[in-house]
């Protein structure tokens, strides 16, 4: 099922290695800070951490061109950061401030940014898939060569919308790439308890859609698989499906006693931490040094503390503006 085009391994050079590490670390530190701010009640509502899955967003989003479109879920801080939405505007959004990328109306689950064609942040499982299919349809009808990437968790595979969207995309050969983040659990429900067939690539195949799995803890493998898929989609061959096999290190959201899995299982997976393993690999390969890591760490923590200051300093949207944006303020587009 794997398109052969561009099948050779990525050549990893120093810059590339530094970038991958920096992107993954930014997500990790950003979310560690977010968890802290949640306990401090600066961030409220639901907060879903991506910690452990960073390689997927980094590999997947980097495979896109700046003018491609993307759709994600409520667990989308990582994707938004890699896509280039500013750390400050995302943090301000989670604070509920007017300076947030969604003016504080969306919060953690609803990050939107037209500048980077980031179409959310959707809190209904499976709810973003039809949107991605429609964005791809628009590209096709307008004759562009742009691709739409749709990130979603393996839990969404059980939803009827997954089925309808896979079929529609394949039937119409739309330029959409389905990036399934299989972290083995949908809240507390293990994949084996929600799917009669747990090999998700077989499902994709039943729509005649090329599909392949990839180690979601290996950022290089993720980027390769994503680039291969995006290339195939961009070449007009219709949609592709990539299953990223990954794992969520933290709770599903901030209230989750995690009765459904053992500490030991979590510890086993942590040995495959995408950041630690990649860092070790890159060090061994002599691509990066301990100083590089310190420099990146420093750079990131500065960026994040600036973001927090920005969010703190932000303004609350005036209460009298409550009902703005229910209907458009422009009469025409």
């Amino acid at each position, binding site marked *: 099922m794997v398109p052969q085009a561009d099948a050779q391994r990525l050549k990893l050079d120093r810059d590339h290695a530094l970038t991958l590490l920096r992107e993954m670390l930014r997500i990790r530190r950003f979310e560690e800070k977010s968890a802290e701010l949640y306990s401090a009640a600066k961030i409220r509502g639901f907060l879903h951490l991506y910690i452990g899955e960073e390689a997927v967003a980094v590999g997947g989003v980097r495979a896109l061109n700046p003018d491609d479109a993307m759709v994600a879920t409520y667990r989308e801080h990582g994707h938004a950061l890699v896509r280039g939405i500013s750390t400050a505007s995302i943090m301000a959004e989670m604070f509920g401030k007017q300076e947030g990328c969604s003016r504080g*109306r*969306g919060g953690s689950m609803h990050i*939107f940014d037209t500048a980077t064609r980031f179409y*959310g942040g959707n809190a209904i499982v499976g709810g973003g898939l*039809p949107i991605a*299919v429609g964005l*791809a349809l628009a590209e096709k*009808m307008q004759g562009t060569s742009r691709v739409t990437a749709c990130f979603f968790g393996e839990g969404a595979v059980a939803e009827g919308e997954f089925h309808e969207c896979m079929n*529609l995309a394949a039937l119409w050969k739309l330029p959409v790439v389905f990036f399934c983040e299989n972290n083995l659990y949908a809240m507390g429900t293990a994949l084996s308890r929600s799917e009669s067939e747990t090999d998700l690539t077989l499902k994709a195949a039943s729509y005649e859609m090329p599909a392949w799995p990839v180690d979601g803890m290996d950022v290089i493998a993720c980027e390769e698989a994503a680039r291969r898929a995006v290339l195939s989609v961009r070449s007009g061959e219709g949609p592709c499906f990539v299953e990223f096999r990954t794992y969520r290190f933290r709770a599903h959201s901030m209230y989750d006693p995690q009765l459904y899995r053992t500490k030991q299982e979590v510890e086993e997976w942590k040995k495959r931490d995408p950041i630690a393993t990649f860092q070790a690999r890159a060090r061994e390969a002599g691509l990066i040094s301990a100083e590089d890591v310190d420099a990146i760490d420093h750079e990131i923590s500065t960026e994040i503390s600036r973001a927090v200051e920005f969010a703190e300093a932000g303004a609350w949207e005036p209460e009298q503006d409550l009902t703005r*944006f229910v209907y458009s303020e422009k009469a025409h587009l």
Partner: protein
Amino acid sequence: MNTAAKTIRITYREAIKQAIREAMQRDPRVFVMGEDVGRYGGCYAVTMGLLEEFGPERIRDTPLSESAFVGAGIGAAMGGMRPIVEIMTVNFSLLALDQIVNNAATILHMSGGQINIPLVIRMTTGAGRQLAAQHSHSLEGWYSHIPGIRVLTPATLEDARGMLWTALQCPDPVLIFEHGTLYNMEGDLAADAGAIEIDKAAIRRSGKDASLITYGGTLHKALKAAEELSAAGIDAEVIDLRTLRPLDTAAILDSVTRTHRAVIIDEGWRSGSISAEISARIMEGAFYELDAPVARVCSAEVPMPYAKHLEDAALPSVPAIISAVRGMVGENG
């Protein structure tokens, strides 16, 4: 000018088709998507012939996947197109309700005003053809509970011909409900009939003794009732709401302030129908003008039975409207 005088003989069905044709000729971004809109010619023949004229890219037959193709309409609208999504009937729209309520109606707001969804969804509504409980809903009033969407109910040839283009110009999602019993309605329409505003109610018959407030399929029952009442010396005004969201409250209150009596006619089930909202607004805005409590003539609260005599008994009828008006004009009249 004298072309304005020219009229053509046309049906409601044909008026909608001409509106679609004109829109597709005027704007290359407009396309039609839905079940059997192409090869079959539309389940109510509204799109008959358009496939031949515009081709399968712009007159898209979809699989039976209501949630996916309605959601794809949302995405395509975000992506720069101007989709007209046809859902065969309101009964099936329930399968797409999550996309309408959780995405179409919320994304402008959740994105802090960044993302518009210029989407038009057309569907057939209403009973009267012995289609029984699963094919006879009138849910347009129910839909109008949802902030973020607009709800139109064309009941005349002018509106069938003119509301669509204006809806397509609107930056927000618009739902158009076409009552199934109106498609064969025939009459004269100005040859140059075109776009028409979509947020004002219209007085279809002016009168001084009572206001009959209605829309869609029941407009014609109200007009007939008004005729018969005038024979009996009661001069009823007939208000066609035209748009259920936003409701033209001013027009409603203005009429009631002149007639001091109101009967609301609504094919929706009585409890929680739009007729309740109208009654409540009159309570709040014209209480001291009322000579009698506002009355409602709605559908009986029963899943629609198949047998004709039972269906007739379940629906608002001309005699029921007449007796409601008589009852109230009797009182301190």
